[in-house]
């Protein structure tokens, strides 16, 4: 029986999955946002692992070696759980609830998915070799570091493949050429945004764990290690987040040029409040992070006016960037209320909440002060001015705040990006509301035209 005939035969037996589009959306959103947290931690964590293990080896630093061991265990455990989420999402949620969209996506992006699958296998091999043979590999340290780098490369290839897919969904090229769609307008900015963001996120998670140990552990040696972990993770978190204003700006610029409706939705439309909350979280990461650096140096007995000024500037920028551009949910509400005037003239517009120049100035300030603060802090560290174990409750709370803020911003960004395409799942190609309205193909397409012909068979009813 040919595939088209099979489809024609089973079509009458296919049933609509008995849940609404809203619930289906929420299920996928929850699962994928959770998966992104794990995947980002993996990808960023692998390079931190390789760097730390290398430093521990070359500098004969037992603390870094011990931390690397702990990190590889954490990465192994989170990989198992995060991968299970992804596999469940693909096999059940995408194929079951969003089959037309997913089949269409796989048909166009078949090769990126294949590449991702191969790199996934590579990741499994490298990660579990490290996980199970860690102590043996200590005798061949170069091989261990090499495996860690290979692990990072595998994860980066997967990220590249999925970024191609994600960016395509937002800004597809009019052409059906895979080559052209691989480098669609938002692919490179998204790739850079995630590459940097994942390392920052992994650093923030490490800082969060350090903060928890500072706050809740009673053993001095565990607190001391938590103190060092927190500082070490935060360096990555701040060091990589400081590049995000530039990359994020460019990413938004490309969305504005190539998917204006999505850009409008994010910046001025229904998602603008969520976007404002996102920049609020960005401000929180910088301000609380720099505040930690300042207070941590002070705990070592050193006053640092430069860090105090950086904290103050960051706080001022946080206030500036968190100011809404209007006292309304969206710009449409402002126009509808005929209140496109500054608030002192009876309107709803807050001039210093505008993107240009105010939010732009705040973003540039964040980057500038973060570079200065990190430089000053690291100078204190290299001079040996800090003792690990001194950190108090304020430092622990600051580290946890940064970790939670970065985690929230990751989830929120995913929500904003995916929702900005509404009503499309793939911009101008696949609609959200097409998903539950299955129409059997009227003519037989080419035999096994990718997985599209079979992917829509939903086994919720008896199939002959």
């Amino acid at each position, binding site marked *: 029986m040919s595939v088209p005939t099979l489809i024609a035969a089973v079509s009458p037996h296919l049933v609509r999955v008995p849940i609404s589009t809203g619930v289906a959306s929420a299920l996928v959103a929850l699962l994928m946002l959770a998966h992104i947290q794990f995947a980002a931690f993996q990808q960023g964590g692998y390079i931190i692992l390789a760097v730390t293990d290398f430093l521990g080896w070359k500098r004969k630093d037992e603390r870094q070696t011990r931390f690397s061991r702990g990190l590889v265990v954490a990465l192994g455990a989170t990989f198992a759980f995060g991968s299970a989420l992804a596999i469940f999402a693909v096999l059940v949620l995408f194929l079951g609830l969003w089959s037309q969209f997913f089949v269409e996506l796989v048909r166009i992006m078949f090769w990126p998915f294949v590449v991702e699958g191969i790199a996934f296998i590579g990741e499994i091999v490298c990660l579990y070799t490290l996980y199970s043979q860690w102590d043996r590999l200590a005798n061949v340290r170069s091989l261990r570091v090499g495996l860690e780098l290979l692990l990072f490369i595998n994860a980066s290839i997967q990220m590249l493949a999925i970024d191609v897919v994600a960016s395509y969904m937002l800004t597809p090229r009019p052409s059906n050429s895979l080559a052209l769609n691989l*480098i*669609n*307008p938002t*692919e*490179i*900015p998204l790739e*850079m945004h995630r590459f940097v963001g994942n390392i920052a996120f992994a650093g923030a998670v490490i800082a969060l764990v350090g903060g928890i140990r500072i706050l809740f552990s009673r053993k001095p040696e565990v607190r001391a290690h938590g103190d060092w972990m927190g500082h070490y993770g935060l360096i990555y978190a701040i*060091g990589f987040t*400081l*590049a995000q204003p*530039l*990359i994020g700006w*460019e990413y938004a610029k*490309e969305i504005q040029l*190539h998917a204006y409706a999505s850009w409008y939705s994010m910046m001025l439309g229904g998602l603008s409040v969520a976007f404002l909350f996102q920049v609020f979280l960005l401000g929180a990461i910088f301000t609380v992070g720099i505040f930690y650096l300042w207070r941590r140096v002070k705990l070592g007995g050193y006053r640092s006016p430069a860090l105090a000024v950086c904290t103050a500037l960051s706080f001022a920028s946080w206030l500036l960037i968190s100011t809404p551009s209007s006292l309304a949910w969206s710009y449409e509400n402002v126009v509808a209320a005929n209140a496109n005037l500054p608030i002192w003239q009876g309107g709803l517009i807050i001039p210093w909440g505008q993107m240009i120049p105010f939010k732009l100035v705040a973003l540039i300030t964040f980057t500038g002060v973060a*570079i200065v603060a*990190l*430089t000053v802090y*690291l*100078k204190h*560290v*290299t001079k040996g001015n800090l003792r690990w174990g001194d950190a108090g409750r304020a430092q622990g709370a600051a580290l946890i705040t940064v970790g939670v803020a970065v985690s929230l911003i990751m989830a929120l960004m995913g929500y904003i990006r995916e929702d900005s395409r509404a009503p499309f799942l793939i911009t101008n190609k696949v609609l959200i509301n097409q998903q539950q309205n299955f129409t059997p193909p009227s003519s037989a397409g080419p035999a096994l035209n990718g997985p599209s012909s079979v992917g829509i068979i939903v086994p919720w009813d008896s199939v002959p």
Partner: protein
Amino acid sequence: MSSPSQPGRSALVAKLTRPVARPMAATYRWVDERMGISDLTHQLLYEATPRRGAWAYSLGSATLIIIVLQIVTGMFLLWTYVPSTTEAWESLNFIEHHDEFAAIVRGMHLWGAYVLLIIIGLHMIRTFVSGSYKKPRELNWIVGVLLFLMVLGLGITGAMLPWDQAAYWTAIVVTHVVDYIPLLGNWMQQILRGGPQMGPETLTRFFAIHIWLLPALLVPLIGLHLVLLRRHGEHGSWVNYEGVETEPEEVRKERMAKAEYPYPAIPSDPGYAVPVDLDDFFPSQVFKDAVVSFALVLIIFIMAVVVGAPLERAANPAALNYVPTPEWFFLPLDQLLVQFPQAWMIPVGVFVVPGIGTTLLILVPFLDRSPEREPWRRPEVMVPALFATLFLIFEALLAVNRLFNL
């Protein structure tokens, strides 16, 4: 163990070559007595260099070799190239289609420029990371930065000479950008264009800058760079100074007293005047320099043969839909140009930001005055430099993305 027949063979060789060898040796002695070639060779080749990390130090020699290659290939191109708006493109078109040797030479000139920029970049990164700019080598760092800027200038002026579409519209963009400089912009634009509009004089001026003005500045600066290098010796990197900070004063003094030429480098931070472990420049370092330089020249040759140098259609000022794409080494600047879309902000993007960056690069030796050489103990320069490098890479990638998706 030597063979019993060796003495006999040596005597035979000496006997056979005597009619030629004796006059040659006498001639060399005569010239040497008058020119001091032996002394000069001895001075040039016999010096000490740091032993560890020696392959990384070959980047400087490789830069010099490629600059020489550029000069030689440039001279060959002058035999055919005509610097006029009516004949420049024709002469290069002739090379590309009727003169295979010249086409390869042209390809080597282009790829030589690309490789040169990469190698200079790596050389500067190596120098920066190792803290080789620290006293007494501050002046040499400044000269190196000036050389880098001149090579960039040579790159952009050279790109305009073919007078094809790419060259013409690059010249339009470059001379247009200059106009954004407050007060002086219009005057500078007219100087570069040879008038208010693009014309024959524009090409002549860029040609003169490319083959006369910049080389005339470049060559003396290279000489100064080498003289300063010989004066202070190669610093190497931190791996050549392990333990110097904690060594006893007597040991340090003894090391200084026994230092081979050109060490000790004075004035220097305590312990850093002489590397701990030294090697001979000849033959050890010369061999490594030769291998790296040969490999690079080979790569340039292969790229010239396989890829060659592109030549678009002849310049057509009426083709207003042509989108000029900058040379890859100007992609970050091109991206900065579009990131400041409003006219009054463009000078900030293309002059103020790069200007501040260049000034800071020149001032690095005076901003980083601590005695530390290890990169992880110098966050005050390493963190901003890392960010600046990432910034340039990101800007280049974003420019590629923008140009590809136009």
